[in-house]
């Protein structure tokens, strides 16, 4: 049998969104040794990072959607992730994003998240998703605002305070 969900590939102006690969490990592992990872589940070593990569790849097949790896078209480098996560302990599907060191400040996360959100609304029927954002993560909050999201409430995720942001329903906006 084959895994039911071939992970779709999305191309934007500067990025390719695609499924995770073994070769993405070094870029993920590097990110997860930096303090920026405190906002996305916490810093961890390579073994735990690989375990997380396996779960993210498996998520696609358990849910039918998941997180893409953001590949930077020009350099071919692994630049971050975006997509829809719905772990068992998530209240509903979430739009998430992160860009790795060296890829910030160029609007890449915005470009990637917009494409992921449009795919979710159009192909998955997931409209007006939430985003979990650590209250200390100003950059991510700024991007959420730029994406038209607003804070719905302060909550808690796996024992840490988290803001739940709500995205606009793009299908309504287009209608």
């Amino acid at each position, binding site marked *: 049998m084959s895994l039911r969900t071939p992970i779709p590939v999305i191309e934007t102006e500067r990025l390719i969104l695609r499924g*995770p690969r073994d070769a993405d490990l070094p870029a993920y592992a590097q990110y997860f040794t930096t303090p920026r990872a405190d906002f996305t589940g916490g810093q961890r070593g390579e*073994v735990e990072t690989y*375990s997380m990569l396996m779960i993210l790849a*498996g998520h696609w097949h358990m849910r039918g959607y998941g997180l893409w790896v953001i590949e930077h078209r020009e350099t071919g480098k692994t630049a971050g992730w975006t997509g829809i996560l719905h*772990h068992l302990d998530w209240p509903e599907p979430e739009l998430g994003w992160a860009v790795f060191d060296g890829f910030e400040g160029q609007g890449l996360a915005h470009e990637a998240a917009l494409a992921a959100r449009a795919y979710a609304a159009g192909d998955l029927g997931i409209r007006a998703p939430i985003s979990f954002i650590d209250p200390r993560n100003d950059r991510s909050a700024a991007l959420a605002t730029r994406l038209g999201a607003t804070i719905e409430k302060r909550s808690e995720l796996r024992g840490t305070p988290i803001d739940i942001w709500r995205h606009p329903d793009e299908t309504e906006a287009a209608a």
Partner: protein
Amino acid sequence: MKIPTLHTERLTLRGPDARDIEPMRAFYASDRSRFVGGPRTAELAWRHLGTEIGHWTLRGYGRWMVEVTETGEIVGNVGLWNPEGWPEPEIGWDLFEGAEGKGYATEAALAARAYAYDVLGWTTVISLVKPANEASARVAARMGAFLDSEFTHERWGHMQVWRHPAPADIADGGMEAYS
């Protein structure tokens, strides 16, 4: 990624997918999971199933869900495992509640080993066994493996390394013997 299905005399080994959420939850809720990181919550069992599927996508091989061919009952999770942090590629077997004592683990693991040697071309393979897990050590011994060394994993702790006989040392090896 296409996960091959293997057949043995009594068992079907197929790729893990979303239908395995409940059996995986039940296994990790049971005491039988005590040698492989359990018991664990439903949420962690769900994530574990994710790693089982994800290993296939990332490595190109992995562990199968084991069904009794005649009844369709899911009795375990057996196959090839080599995530980051593993000492070398491994054959592992988890047998679910009520499936023990019937030789299923050995039968499925032999098919997995034949796949590793005959299809993937591996020249050696190990099995990691928790020192207190006597039932698992017996499966390794029955497969002709011997206690080779020890290994400590940062998350899973101390384990025995059992080394399987090389392909040339298996008299009646070969996929056809198990299919």
